[in-house]
Every structure is written in structure tokens, then in C-alpha cells.
């Protein structure tokens, strides 16, 4: 496997950022982070709503980035011939 390139980092961070924005919007429109804090473990006690939004956003970004990273990893480590067979029209 070749080393990690700048493009790989961008391919992981950028789509997951977009996904995290959409997920945060939908999730926090329905759920108030303060309610979540009060219902959850004591770990988050003392955090306010703004901290809840930020942590939620970072959590979504991290989860989506993990998925993107696995996708990029699987594509980059596949054999060249199977990649060519999968994507016939690739430029």
C-alpha cells in the first residue's frame, strides 16, 4: 500500500464534514442536548447546551470520518485489476 496522501485526507474529512452538518441539523432539531445530558450518564454533567452541540457535531464528524476512512482504505488496498473491473469507465 502506498503512503497516505493529501487527497486521501481530504476524501475522508470533507464528505464526513458535510454528512456531520446534515446529521447535526436533523438530530438537534429533534433532540435537546440538555435533555440528553440529564438522561445520560454523569460523564456529561456540567456541560451546557453549546458544549452539547459542539460535542455532538464532533461525534458525527468522527463517526462519518471513520466510515470514509474505511472506504478509502478498502479502495486503496484493493488489487489494481479488481479495481479496474469494478470501475469500467474510470478515467
Amino acid at each position, binding site marked *: 500500500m502506498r503512503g497516505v496522501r493529501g*487527497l486521501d485526507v481530504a476524501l475522508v474529512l470533507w464528505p464526513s464534514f458535510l454528512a456531520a452538518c446534515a446529521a447535526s441539523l436533523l438530530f438537534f*432539531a*429533534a433532540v435537546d442536548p440538555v435533555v440528553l445530558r440529564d438522561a445520560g450518564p454523569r460523564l456529561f454533567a456540567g456541560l*451546557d447546551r*453549546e458544549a452539547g452541540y459542539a460535542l455532538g457535531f464532533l461525534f458525527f464528524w468522527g463517526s462519518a470520518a471513520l466510515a470514509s476512512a474505511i472506504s478509502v482504505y478498502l479502495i486503496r488496498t484493493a488489487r489494481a485489476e479488481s479495481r479496474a473491473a469494478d470501475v469500467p469507465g474510470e478515467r
Partner: protein
Amino acid sequence: MASATPLPPSAPPAGFYAAAAKIYPREVDGRFSRLRKAAVVVLLGLFYGFAWLDWNGHQALLFDLPARKFHIFGLTLWPQDFLYLTLLLIVAALSLFFFTALAGRLWCGYACPQTVWTELFVWIEQWTEGSRLQRMKLDRAPWRAAKLLRKSGKQVLWLTLALFTGFTFVGYFTPIRSLAAQILSLSLGPWPWFWVFLYSLATYGNAGFLREQVCKYMCPYARFQSAMFDKDTLIISYDEQRGEPRGARRRGSVARSVGLGDCIDCTMCVQVCPTGIDIRHGLQYECIACGACIDACDQVMDKMGTARGLIRYTTEHALRGERTRIARTRLVVYAVLISAALGALTFLLLTRTPLILDVLRDRNALYREVHGDRIENAYTLKMINLDDQPHRYRVTVSGMRGLELIAPVGEVPLPPGSVNSIAARLEAPRELSGGVHRIVLTLAAVDGSGSAVHENARFIGPKP
């Protein structure tokens, strides 16, 4: 993406983003660049200005996330009003489809924040580092005092602008005046700082550093926008039949008599392109339809004494000498869908009642006997005034003979945007209250605002 017209094959794909050559767009003047400058001034003026606009004593546009309330001029939206936002996003998406099908990537060329902020950052770059040729020379020059001064001056201006942009952005989510005061007194909490820096970094990185690479490598819309295109879509196109064969010639010579087309191959269209493509290779997904190449080519055609429009807004049908149809099924369908969504949004907003009433029965007792011959039921009324004005309300009951409201009597005042839970007691004569009765509680504003909500409940008496 394959080119839609049978033009020469497009250039081989550029290298990966770290290796991409730096693009030095040449400055250009003309109809489209003036239009773009006007769009930049208007849109950024709105962005930086609206944050400071007040309306009825509060910030006119405030998406108050800490309080979970959106203030849009006189309207206050709560999380339960998410439907409006959804409809608004649907309208925005459909409008994007409509305008793309009509005239290509108008969004990319004039309205996309990426374009708008990049334009602003390029202005700063031109001001500190000079024209395209001066910038290229400066980058090749060794690091001396003059270069250091120009480069660091640019960075200082860029960073200041980026930080102010991040601050303004956060100012739409927490009240901007108190945000400014907290920053100046260094008493701002860590999370607002995090968002200010994140948005500043995004502005600086996208508009100063990445620029056209965002459009070429990061933007999903650039990849699928061609799905909205058809042969009647206005696109920026090089008129190959008129231009080829291209080549240099003496000024004043008649192109056809020396066996050439109108293109003098001056490469001005390539030099002004912010994404560094050659429009003469045909429609490419890197083209953000800014129109800089049209402006540049028109100037050259004027100098050569030939007609403008060798590169112009045209359609595939028109290029082939066929008729262009503007009103076509695709556009009509988009227009109908946009009107329907806008109509629904308007109707829902106009008929929205900024008031919520929840009725909870007392869990401790089904009923209570009072004064020997009367039955009492107790409830908790949860009232929310969703309006941004204070109102006074009165509770009334109906749906059962002999039913009487004991509490609350009189008017219940509610400040704007507040929730209030009050105890309510209802009574009915014993002989009329046997069994379970469906009743209706009504909460109505008594100050002429006309808001009223009805809520069903049960009144329970002893088994008959």
C-alpha cells in the same frame, strides 16, 4: 464528464490536489466580471450587515441555538417548527435545479460562498501582490524584504478578514453584540471560540488556499450538475465553427482570406480562468460559469475588429443552428414544484398559531367530591407562548352540561417565548357528572391577537 458537444477531447485530468499547479487568474473587466463584483458586494454586504440589524428590540436574524429558538424578523420559530425549515430547503434545492437547467451554473459563478469569498481574497491578493504577471514574478523571486512585506501583508489581511468572517458567522447563532463585548473583554467561553476559529479556518483555507480546488475536487454539485443540463440549457461555449482553425495573424487581416478562423490563439481565455481550464476544449465540469473568458475574448475581438461572442452564453441547439426552446417540460415541472412548496410554506406560516396548550390530568385521583354535591377534576395546563410579543390569555371549557371552570379564573399573562404550567380545577354537579365525559379546553388570547388553541381532555365522575 464527457463533453456534451463534439469538440476536441478535454485536457487530461489534472494531478492530485497537492500536486496541482498554482493558478494565477488574470484580472479581467467586462459585463460578467462587473456582474460578479456586484454579486460579491451585495451578498457579502448582506452577510456582514444583517448580523447587526435589529428588529423590535432583538437581533433581526438570530438562530439562537443556546435557547433553541430561531428569530427571523418578527417570526420566532421553535424546534417543533422544523417543517418550515424543511420546506425552505426543498424550495432552495428545487430553485437550484431550475436555474441550472435554465442557464447552467449561475449558482457557482455568482452566488456560491466559495466563489464570493475567493473573489474577495483575490482582490486582497491583487492589492498586495499586484497583477497576474507581478504575482508570478514575486513567487519566483528570492525571499527579500519587499517580498516578505507583500506576502506577510496579504496574510495579515487574509487572517483578519477570516477572523471577522468567523466572528460574524457565530454572531448569527449567539447575539452578536454581546459576542463582540465578550470577545473584547476576553470573557468568551471555549465553545464560541471553537466555532469562531473553525469558521475562520474554513474561510481562510477555502478562499485563500484551496480556491478552485474546492470546486474541482470537493464539490459534489460540480459532479452532478450536468444531470440537470439539456440541449436548451444556456452554457458558456466556444464557437468552434467560427473560431477554428485558430492561429496568430496580422491585425486587420481578414481571417478567412488567410485560411484561419476567428480565434487568434492569444490564450487570454485560459489566463483569466479561475479554475485554469481551456474553454475551447468544450464543456468541462471544472467550469464554474463565471464568464471571465467571455469578457476576455470580447475585449480581444473588439481589438481585432471582429464581432464579439466567439465565446458566449449559448445552447447546444443554437450552436448547431437549431431552435432553442426555453419553456420545456423539465423547467415547467421544476417551476410547478417550486410554486407548490412555496405555496405550502406561505399557507402554513400564515395560518400558524403561535400558541401551544397541553392538558395533563392529575394522576393522583380520578375525581374528588367537594361541597357534598359536586365533583371536581384537577389538571395541569402547560402553555407555551411561541410569539415574540407578550400576550394575555383566558381559559374556557366546553363539551359537558354543568361544567364550570374554578381555576384559573381571570387572565393568564405569558411573556414572549415562555412556558408556564398552571393548575386547573373543573367542577360539575354530581347528577350530571357520572362516567367519562369528553370535554374541550380552549386557550385564547384576550388582547386581540386572535390566537386560540383547543385541546381535548376527559372529565371523570363516579360510576352512575
